[in-house]
Structures are given as structure tokens and as C-alpha cells.
């Protein structure tokens, strides 16, 4: 039976004077794939950033694997086992693909494990092996996305959070990426995705959280939510 891996209660945060999250309650179980959907500006990206420590938490609790990581700085969150693949990729300019990937493993000291994971990541995304010496930011958008996700995997996280999975990616690539994520999940990594293509999100994830105006409006199994007429109209455009 699945244990809760990430438990968030009453989380609030924002930017300066502007509050964006107004009390988020989420539970993600170990081994799950969950998705966050919602309108533009609803707070999905802010939520991810608050969890990973980029945005400051104003109140609430974030419990990961039994440990309270509320308000922990970004490096501690990564150290606890949460990797955040940000919106817009944010690869390191001037560094090769390989260097970007190795930076993902910066906090690890198990050299053989890191090597193993590098191979694993090259197997998942062969184009990265091909271009491993190329400046990561000179690749096309989709290839950069692959590199960013791979970088996240390199920290061998227990929880991988991906913000905007399919942004700028060709449909067949999204399909491949989704398959890769299923494989990564099968190997033991819990995944949370923010995804605007709700159809793809619902196919990939078991559990969905609908974020609107900084709160969780609805949550449930994706198989059930995709039949919900309100969801269908608002997010699936049907």
C-alpha cells in the first residue's frame, strides 16, 4: 500500500506583496504520477517553486517522507530528494550537455552511481548522448527540455517535479517523453507534472489536482475526473 510521500497543508506564498497561494492541501503517495492542471496564472508554477524553496513560504506545512521541510532553502530540498525541473528549462549557458547533467548530480558523492545514472539518462534520451559535448543552450527547445529533465533525474530524486512538460515539444516527442516518465516512475521515482495539455496529463498521471486562484479546486483519480463535465469544459475544451 502506498505511503504518502509529500503532504502539504495550508500552504500560502507569493511574490513580495502579492499572495498567490491561498492555502494549498495536497497529498502525493510514493510511487505515483500526479499532475497539476489549471488556468494560466492559477499558481501551479508558484506551488512548485514554493515546495522546492525558490519561493518563500509564508505559512503552512510541507512534509516530505516524514520530514518537515517547510521553508527549507533550495539546496536542502534537493538534498532531501526533491528535484525541480523548472518552467523554461533554465539550462546553464556555455556549458555542454554533459556538464549540465553532471551539475544535476552536484550534491552526490557516489561516483559510480552518478556514472550509472548518466548512462541511464543517455539511454532514455539518445540525442543527449549524441550531443553531449554541445553547448546545451544551442540545442532546439525540445532537446533542451530533455536535457533539463535528465538533469533533474541526475540527482536521483525520490520526487521529480516537472513544470510544463510539453511546452514547445513536438507531439511525438511528448509521447516519447511520457513513456520515459512512466519508465522512470516504474523504477521508483514519484513524479508530479504541471501540464497544460490536459489530455496528455490525464493519460500520464493517476492522480490530478486542479489549481485555481491559488487553491485546490478539485482533486481525484484522473480516470474519474476526465468524465467530469465541468473539467471537460474548462480544461479539455470540450
Amino acid at each position, binding site marked *: 500500500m502506498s505511503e504518502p510521500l509529500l503532504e502539504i497543508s495550508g500552504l500560502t506564498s507569493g511574490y513580495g506583496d502579492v499572495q498567490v497561494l491561498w492555502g494549498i492541501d495536497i497529498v502525493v503517495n510514493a510511487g505515483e504520477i500526479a499532475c497539476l492542471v489549471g488556468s494560466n496564472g492559477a499558481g501551479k508554477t508558484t506551488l512548485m517553486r514554493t515546495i522546492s524553496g525558490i519561493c518563500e513560504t509564508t505559512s503552512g506545512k510541507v512534509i516530505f517522507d516524514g520530514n518537515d521541510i517547510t521553508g527549507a532553502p533550495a539546496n536542502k530540498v534537493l538534498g532531501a530528494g526533491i528535484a525541480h525541473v523548472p518552467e523554461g528549462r533554465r539550462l546553464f549557458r556555455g556549458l555542454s550537455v554533459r556538464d549540465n547533467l553532471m551539475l544535476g548530480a552536484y550534491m552526490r558523492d557516489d561516483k559510480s552511481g552518478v556514472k550509472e545514472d548518466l548512462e541511464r539518462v543517455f539511454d532514455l534520451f539518445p540525442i543527449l548522448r549524441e550531443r553531449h559535448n554541445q553547448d546545451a543552450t544551442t540545442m532546439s527547445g525540445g532537446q533542451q527540455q530533455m536535457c533539463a529533465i535528465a538533469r533533474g533525474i541526475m540527482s536521483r530524486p525520490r520526487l521529480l517535479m516537472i513544470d*510544463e512538460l510539453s511546452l514547445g*515539444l*513536438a507531439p*511525438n*516527442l511528448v509521447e516519447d517523453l511520457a513513456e520515459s516518465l512512466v519508465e522512470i516512475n516504474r523504477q521508483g521515482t514519484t513524479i508530479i507534472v504541471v501540464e497544460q495539455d490536459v489530455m496528455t496529463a490525464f493519460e500520464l498521471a493517476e492522480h490530478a489536482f486542479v489549481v485555481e486562484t491559488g487553491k485546490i479546486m478539485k482533486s481525484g483519480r484522473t480516470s474519474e475526473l476526465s468524465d467530469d463535465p465541468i473539467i471537460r469544459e474548462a*480544461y479539455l*475544451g*470540450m
Partner: protein
Amino acid sequence: MSGPVIELQSVARRFGGIQAVRDVSLKLEEGEVVGMIGPNGAGKTTLVNCITGVHPATSGKVLFEGRDVTRQRPFEAARSGLCRTFQVVQPFPEMTVLQNVAAGALFGQKISRLSQAYDAAHEHLEFVGIDQFADMPASNLTLANRKRLELAKSLAMKPRVLMLDEVNAGLNSAEINGALDLIKKISDQGISIIVIEHLMKVIMTLSQRILVLHHGELIAQGDPRQVVNDPKVVEAYLGEKFAKRIMGNDHV
């Protein structure tokens, strides 16, 4: 005006050892809306860069309204009405939303007075629906709104041809409907449009014709329904699952 508004004759572009675009010939007729799809790295953005002088073609010709503009500089393209948005949004980070759009009016449209440019900027911001953020620093906008800003900035340049490079990325399926209306309105103004997108809903709804780029070459072009059924296109770009989704229902 007779003849295509844009014509590419055997355009090719290489970067060192990499042939990003090879032998592409195409025409854009006035008032058309053409969709361009293709895998990442296929050369779509490079092609736009060739047309706008950012990375001039290493061989072949680019004709704009019959004139050879292959060697033009980016600012010349911008002023003559060849405008484009950017896949990776490039605002002026320290300026407000209004100022960013005013830049388009000042330099693309060649308005000389700042106050006039600001008025024009407000109009365009209203048109794309973000006028309420006019005085906000551009860097504080969400991704989707930054794309709106790009659009407003390009419109402020009074384009004759508008190349939209993934301007809808970041919107969910329902929000895209609003974006589609916007683009249709722009087309109604007589502006010829090339839409580069991965969102097939946008492509299928808007395009009168689709161009498919792969490894720098045009592997298919023509009627949308035909193109998405083309096995080459399915293999190179759409994937089986997605192809079924498009043909299966209209709610892509």
C-alpha cells in the same frame, strides 16, 4: 498586389558543420494563414531567422513583395513589415509592459513622438487583452502573458507579414480558444501569417495550408487534413497516438 508576399527560392542555411535548413522553396500569398510544423531542430525558427535577416541564408533567395531581401539586416526587415515573435520571449527586462510595446511602435512603425507611441501601445495591449498590466515590469508577467506581450509588440510594428513562433505555448486547451480568436482577427486585418506551433489544435483550426519541416527540408505541404494523414508526417512528427487524436475528434 499580384504575386506572393513572401517567396523563398532554394534557401539554405548552415552553421559551421550543421546544415540547419537545406533547399527550402515556398510561397506565402497575401492574406494567407499558413501553419508550420516539424520536430524540434527541424529548422523552423532558423527559417524565420533567414526571412528576417537574423541569420541570412547562406544560399538561395528570400523575396518580400518581389524585392530581394536576402541580405537585409534585422532592423530593416522589422521596419519593412516583416515581423516575428520569439520562441524564447525577449522583452526589454527593465521596461514596463507598455514601454516594451511602445518600442515596437517607435521603431517598427517609425512614430517619432514618445507620447504617440504610448497611445498606440495601449491600443495594441488592449487588443491582445493585457492592457491592465501596462505599467507592470515586463519581467513579472506569467509565461503566457509574456507571449501576449510579444504579440502586442509585433502588432505595434504594423506588420504586413507576421510570423508567430509558438506564441500559444503555456495555454491550456480552453484558453487556446481565446488565442485563436485573436489570431483570426489579426488575419482579418489583411496580415499574412505563418504560425509555428506544436499545438495541433491551433494549427488545424487556423491553417489554410500546412508546411512540414524535418531536418531542414520541406517534407510535406498542402491541405491540413491531407498533411496530417501523410505517413511521413506521422512518423517524423505526430506519432501514431496523436494522429489518431486529431482525426478522431476536433477537440485536439
